[in-house]
Structures are given as structure tokens and as C-alpha cells.
């Protein structure tokens, strides 16, 4: 069977599976719809959280990014896993004990403040929309490359599937579909990784092959060969980086803290039966995430070594078929400046002009072809990429829907509505969010990639401090929390907007404040939030007794 045949078959089977699961687990009440009635076993919730968390970017782009960034890619690896330690230790168990539906619920109740709730809702909705647009785009790209349909058609099919199970099943349907999606995505990530590890180093386990010697009989370690090849061609050595140590520190911290403040991740811990389950569930989530996250840098190193060994110096006519395939859709570019018919692929430190460019996003998708794997593996990777994109999109849509139906309608503007009406509003909001997300997927605003830094920066500088102060500080009051959120958010947003949109030409280390890039500025925003919150809280009256009772309550399981 052809690659396209296999892809249709595997993607079709996986979609049928998701729909089947959604029908079987559809929601019947608001508790079902928002938090799966708190009945999800911790291991399954861990799997669902992992699928929810690992987006199209983790699956498709991360290994490719690391293969070009080398050591600098560690910011994603540590940042997007270390955040789970913060979640498990500082956030998840307490919010599970609190036991409502959303993150703004906690902030609104803890500070007994409608303003605090509304600021939190604004952050939650913005972060979620930012993210979901990227997922729909990922769906479109996979469809157009592997199934040969228009990006628009791909996005519409993806929207229909997510609409079906998110609107019908709510959190309950989403959770069990995400469990299925995790299995699909991890299997399809590991199969090619194992093949390539065996090909390059003779080791079955990619994490071991990453630090092993090459299988070509030279006795040289893979990473040493890769460093050597990189330096010879004028790139930075793979195990070195170009970012300053300070910037790596700040970016890693912003991604970690941002992770622990992302509403669609936090809300998953409302779905487990009790506090002890929330703690272990975060551990399981990280286990399932770590399987992919420790494989990704190995894949990056294998792919990069393979690329540097096969491409430079080859004559163009001789290049493997995958290069020509991806060149057709513009993700590989070759321009023969010196007219000798050979590919000169060199880095900035090399004297000669580079002639070859390869898009970072295609590394994972092209890997099976690069390693000459069978057609079914290529189909499997397509199904896995779709699983990653759809599961994340569904989780985000749920946050948008619960923010609108629960936080804005029920808790703020229409407190009298019945449960049935709230459930209907949640479904309508989810449907509306799917359509908006699809629109962004088809016509992506040019700034999608830019605003990812925004999502993490905002979460780090607003939601994380407000939540942790609410749990760990008895002094913190509404004035302090709101002032902190506004200061953290205002500072972070201003910095990012200035360098990304107002003066992008100044976006380099010479102009950054203390040498911190916009990606890492959320860390400073968080520090500012804590400082302002404490200052204001000390100067204003202490929180009311009912806030203190809530603090005492969430501190005990």
C-alpha cells in the first residue's frame, strides 16, 4: 500500500476511535461537562494531561527546533517538564481540595473579589485562544502534506471532529479521548525514534543511543561526531549554545512557571477523585510526558547528524527522494549560488555562502522518510501529529467554554441561571470557540508564533503568583493580588509587545533589559508580581475571615 493509503487508513481508524470513545463517555451534567465529575483515575488523568499538554508544537516542531538549537533547546526540555514539579507541589493538590470548576473560580473565591476573577478569566481566555490557533494550523499542515488536500479542508475536518467530541462529551468525553490520543501519539513518536536509534548507533533505546558510539565502526561517540561536523561546517557545536547563560536561565524559568499557571493544565487536576490522587496524577502526567521529552533531543541529534553526513557536498541530482518531496511544498530550499551542482550547506562562521535551507518543522515528519522506514510508519506519524493537535485543541476549547459559561455567566453576570442553561451555554461557547479557532487555523494571523511567548509570559506573571500566594500566604488580600497581577501582566505584556510588534528591529541582546529576551521576561514579571502583591497587601487591610477559612481548608487534604 502507498504512503497515502496507509495515512488515510491509520488516520481514519484513529478518528473512528475518538468518536467512539466520545459517544460512550458523553456528559450528562455540568459536573460531567466541566470536570468529568471528579471520577477520573489518576493514571488515566495523567495520560490525558500528557496528551492535553503535548501539542502540535511538542510533537511536530520540538525535535526539529532542538536539532537546530542544540544545547539552547534545553530551555524547552527543562522548562516544559520542570513546571510539573511546581504543579504537583505548589498547585494541583490544593486546587483539587478547593474543588470547583475553573482557575478563576479559585482566584475569585480566595480573594472574595469579582475584579480578581474577571482579570483571571481574561488571562485564561487569551492564553487559550493563542494556543488553539496554533493547533488548528498543525492539523491543516499534516492534512495537506500527507493526504494531499487543501489546508482549509484539513482544518474543517479537524474542527468537525473536535466539535463533535468536545461539545458532546465535555471534560468527560475529552478526558477519555485524550487517553486514546496519548497512546496513538506516543506510539507513533517512539516507533521511528527506535528505528533511527538502531540505524545510527545500534541501540534500541533512543535515550541510550543518544550517548552511545556510532554504529559505523569509527568508535566515536555520536555527540562528538555531531559537534565536530557542526564546527567544521561553520555551525555552533551541538552541545554548546549561542544564548547567554542568563537568558537560558530566564527562559527556562518563564516556561516552567508558565506551565504551572496554564489554565488548561491546572483544570485537569479538578477531575480526579481526591487530593492524594491529584498529587500522583501530576507524577503520572510527567512520566508520560518525559517519555516523549527525553526521546525528542535524541531524535534531534540523530536527525542532525544524519543530515550533516548526507547533505553537504552531495550533487543536487543525487539527493535522497525526501529532499525533493519536501522541496515541492517549499519546506526545503536549494539555490546553487556557485553553479557547481553540489549542495553547500554551511553555517554563519563558514566563509562561503550557504545554498541549502531546511524548515525546522519537518524534522519529525520527514524522519521516517530520511531513515527509509516503511510506508505505514509515515502514516502512523501523521495520525500521531493529528492526535497531538486535536487533544490539545479540545482541552483549550473546554477552558474557553467553561470561562464563558461558568465564570462569566453563572458566577458574574447571570447568577440565577439553571444547570441546564449553564450546560447549554457551555456547549454553545465551545461550538463558537471551535469556529473561531478554525478561522485562525485557515487564516493564521502573522503573529501566532510570536504570541506563544505571550501565553507563557502571561501565565507566569499573572495566574501562577495569584494562585500560589492564595494558598501559601495568609496575608494576601484582593488588593495585593489584583495589583500584583496587573503589574506583572502590564510589565510582561509591554515588554513583549514592544520587542515583537512596536520595534522588532531592536529585538536583540544589545537592547534587551539586562540581556533578557522577550521569551524569558515572564520570569521578571513574576518577580514583580510577587513584590507588588506583598507591598500592597501589607499596606491594606488583611483578607476577610472567609478567605482565611478557605486557605485553612485547602491546606488540608
Amino acid at each position: 500500500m502507498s504512503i497515502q493509503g496507509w495515512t488515510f487508513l491509520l488516520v481514519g481508524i484513529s478518528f473512528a476511535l475518538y468518536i467512539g470513545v466520545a459517544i460512550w463517555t458523553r456528559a450528562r451534567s455540568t459536573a460531567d461537562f466541566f470536570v468529568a465529575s471528579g471520577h477520573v483515575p489518576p493514571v488515566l488523568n495523567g495520560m490525558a494531561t500528557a496528551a492535553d499538554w503535548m501539542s502540535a508544537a511538542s510533537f511536530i516542531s520540538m525535535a526539529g527546533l532542538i536539532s537546530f538549537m542544540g544545547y539552547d533547546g534545553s530551555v524547552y526540555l527543562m522548562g516544559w517538564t520542570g513546571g510539573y514539579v511546581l504543579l504537583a507541589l505548589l498547585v494541583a493538590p490544593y486546587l483539587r481540595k478547593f474543588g470547583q470548576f475553573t482557575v478563576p473560580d479559585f482566584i475569585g473565591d480566595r480573594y472574595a473579589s469579582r475584579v480578581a476573577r474577571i482579570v483571571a478569566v481574561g488571562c485564561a481566555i487569551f492564553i487559550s485562544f493563542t494556543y488553539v490557533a496554533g493547533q488548528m494550523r498543525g492539523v491543516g499542515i499534516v492534512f495537506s502534506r500527507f493526504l494531499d488536500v487543501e489546508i482549509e479542508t484539513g482544518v474543517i475536518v479537524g474542527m468537525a471532529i473536535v466539535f463533535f467530541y468536545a461539545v458532546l462529551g465535555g471534560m468527560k468525553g475529552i478526558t477519555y479521548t485524550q487517553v486514546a490520543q496519548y497512546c496513538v501519539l506516543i506510539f507513533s513518536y517512539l516507533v521511528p525514534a527506535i528505528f533511527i536509534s538502531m540505524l545510527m548507533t545500534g541501540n534500541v533505546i533512543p535515550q541510550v543511543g543518544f550517548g552511545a558510539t556510532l554504529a559505523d565502526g569509527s568508535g566515536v561517540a555520536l555527540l562528538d561526531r555531531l559537534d565536530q561536523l557542526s564546527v567544521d561546517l561553520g555551525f555552533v557545536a551541538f552541545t554548546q549554545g549561542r544564548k547567554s547563560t542568563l537568558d537560558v536561565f530566564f527562559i527556562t524559568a518563564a516556561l516552567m512557571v508558565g506551565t504551572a499557571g496554564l489554565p488548561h493544565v491546572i483544570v485537569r487536576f479538578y477531575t480526579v477523585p481526591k487530593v492524594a490522587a491529584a498529587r500522583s496524577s501530576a507524577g503520572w502526567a510527567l512520566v508520560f510526558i518525559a517519555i516523549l521529552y527525553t526521546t525528542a533531543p535524541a531524535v534531534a541529534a540523530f536527525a542532525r547528524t544524519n543530515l550533516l553526513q548526507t547533505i553537504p557536498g552531495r550533487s543536487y541530482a543525487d539527493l535522497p527522494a525526501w529532499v525533493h518531496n519536501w522541496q515541492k511544498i517549499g519546506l526545503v530550499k536549494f539555490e546553487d549560488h556557485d553553479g557547481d551542482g553540489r549542495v553547500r550547506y554551511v553555517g554563519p562562521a563558514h566563509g562561503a555562502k550557504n545554498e541549502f535551507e531546511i524548515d525546522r518543522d519537518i524534522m519529525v515528519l520527514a524522519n521516517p522518510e530520511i531513515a527509509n522506514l516503511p510506508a505505514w510508519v509515515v502514516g502512523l506519524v501523521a495520525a500521531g501529529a493529528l492526535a497531538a493537535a486535536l487533544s490539545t485543541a479540545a482541552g483549550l476549547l473546554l477552558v474557553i467554554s467553561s470561562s464563558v459559561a461558568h465564570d462569566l455567566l453563572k458566577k458574574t453576570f447571570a447568577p440565577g441561571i439553571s444547570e441546564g442553561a449553564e450546560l447549554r451555554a457551555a456547549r454553545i461557547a465551545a461550538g463558537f470557540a471551535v469556529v473561531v479557532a478554525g478561522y485562525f487555523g485557515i487564516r493564521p494571523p502573522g503573529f501566532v508564533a510570536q504570541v506563544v511567548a505571550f501565553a507563557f509570559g502571561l501565565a507566569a506573571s499573572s495566574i501562577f503568583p495569584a494562585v500560589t500566594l492564595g494558598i501559601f500566604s495568609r496575608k494576601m488580600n484582593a488588593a495585593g493580588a489584583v495589583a500584583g497581577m496587573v503589574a506583572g501582566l502590564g510589565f510582561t505584556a509591554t515588554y513583549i509587545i514592544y520587542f515583537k510588534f512596536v520595534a522588532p528591529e531592536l529585538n536583540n541582546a544589545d537592547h534587551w533589559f539586562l540581556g533578557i529576551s522577550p521569551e524569558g521576561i515572564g520570569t521578571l514579571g513574576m518577580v514583580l508580581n510577587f513584590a507588588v502583591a506583598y507591598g500592597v497587601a501589607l499596606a491594606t487591610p488583611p483578607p476577610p475571615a472567609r478567605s482565611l477559612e478557605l486557605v485553612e481548608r485547602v491546606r488540608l487534604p
Partner: protein
Amino acid sequence: MSDLSEAGRHAAYWRRNLQYLAILLTIWFVVSFGFGILLREPLDAIRLGGFKLGFWFAQQGSILVFVVLIFVYVALMNRLDREYGVEDEASSE
């Protein structure tokens, strides 16, 4: 524990929780920001098979330690919950 008031017992439980957090978060900081970032260059002089040690911590080791840290926390807290008799049974519903 019977000689302590309920409020006193809860406060003691909370202090122990904070002690665990301080120790575990210190390890969390040291393996990632310490070994993986600030001390990477000196550690890179040490080899772990085909890896430079600082690089290994940044891309593999820190993640493995994170996983272990969470499960250690789970075990410590489950024991503490039993010790203070604060396990939740019905409170979640």
C-alpha cells in the same frame, strides 16, 4: 498527637509539608538551573559515556529527577496524611 489541639495539629502538618517542599524544590533547582545551566560548563569536563555531564543534565537528567521528585513527594505526603489522620475520604464529593 492527642495532647495537641486540632488547630495545633493542622499547623504542625502544614509545617512538615513546607519542609518537604523546601527540600524537594532545592533539589529541583539544583539539577536544572544548577547542573543544567549555571554549572554546565565545568560539568561538561566530566563524561558520562558519550555525553558531557552538564549537557546530559540539561537534556535528560533533570527530567528524570523531576519525575522521581514528584513520586517522592507523593509518598512523603501520603505518609504524613496518615500520621496526622487528615486523609480525605468523603471531603472530595
